[in-house]
């Protein structure tokens, strides 16, 4: 009975969503190109005051924001304060997990020979790939969050292979805290040098070069280290509530 009433409610909700969205969004006909009046047009042309000069890969220099990956330039430059808040949310959730599950010691798990050997072989490669992804966040798809998650996955694989956490957790906490502090310090330097918090005050270089885009690569490396150590800390906290199988 309850499921039937829920199903009816869902049908009513679906009807209202369809009828209200159908007028405002064109479901079957996406536009041919991005609307000139959208804010994103300014992000793509790297000119927040609204110009539409062409930006060419490998040629344009001295732009407002020199990142080739436009999503990165939105996340870490134009909306960097948002990312700071996002990292704070992740920190608070890691803190909550630590408070709830951090008390136990955790039993050692058994793992098979294949997993044990493969984990030793693969986890360093995963670690290096994660570092590659977050240092190239301004050029290729990816960035601090996927790279950090990949590093934490290598940590998880290592835990599965060896059956217990062998890393020094205190150093993870230090890395996490220092990365967060440096993010805020970079923002504060922007406040004093250029006049607003987290402003891109370093020279932005040529679009598409590894050393370009000002503070974006620095911040993304910090975000990658912070996310990697934070998610590894969450995994370590969960492993403490493990019981013998």
């Amino acid at each position, binding site marked *: 009975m309850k499921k039937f009433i829920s199903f009816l409610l869902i049908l009513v909700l679906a009807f209202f969503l369809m009828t209200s969205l159908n007028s405002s969004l064109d479901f079957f006909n996406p536009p041919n190109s991005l609307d000139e009046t959208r804010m994103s047009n300014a992000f793509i042309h790297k000119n927040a005051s609204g110009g539409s000069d062409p930006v*060419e890969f490998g040629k344009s220099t001295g732009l407002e924001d020199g990142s080739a990956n436009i999503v990165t330039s939105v996340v870490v430059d134009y909306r960097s304060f948002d990312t700071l808040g996002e990292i704070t949310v992740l920190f608070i959730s890691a803190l909550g997990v630590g408070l709830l599950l951090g008390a136990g010691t955790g039993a050692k798990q058994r793992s098979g020979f294949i997993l044990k050997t493969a984990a030793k072989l693969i986890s360093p490669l995963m670690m290096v790939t994660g570092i590659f992804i977050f240092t190239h966040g301004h050029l290729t*798809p990816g960035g601090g969050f996927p790279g950090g998650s990949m590093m934490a996955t290598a940590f998880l694989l290592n835990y599965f292979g060896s059956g217990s956490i062998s890393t020094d957790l205190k150093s993870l906490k230090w890395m996490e805290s220092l990365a967060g502090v440096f993010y805020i310090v970079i923002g504060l330097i922007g406040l004093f040098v250029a006049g607003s918090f987290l402003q891109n005050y370093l020279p932005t270089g040529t679009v598409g070069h590894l050393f370009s885009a000002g503070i974006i690569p620095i911040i993304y490396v910090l975000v990658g280290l912070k996310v990697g150590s934070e998610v590894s800390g969450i995994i370590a906290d969960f492993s403490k509530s493990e019981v013998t199988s």
Partner: protein
Amino acid sequence: MIQFAGIALILIGIYGLMTTKHMIKLIIALNVLELGANIFIISVGFVKNGLAPILTADVPSDLLNFVDPLPQAMVLTAIVIGFGATALGLAVARKVYGKYQTYDLSVIGGEE
């Protein structure tokens, strides 16, 4: 067209949240709901023959065919926050299981 998939996932997630009493299934329903919302937000920025908004050597210089990068940046934020919420929810579920030996909320009951 992909908007329908997003809306369908949102509705499935809400249905799951309304009907189940199992804590892990509740968290899974919340994840399905979040996934639907993310797909819907990304699909808002789609254009015909759209390219990923990354400048490479063979992108035409008029830059008209990029999809909207702003919804993608928003969804990146939403994914990370969804991850944090899921981790915290699973930790709470584990703690409740340690006390009551069950994940079923109707067995646990409320405060007297």
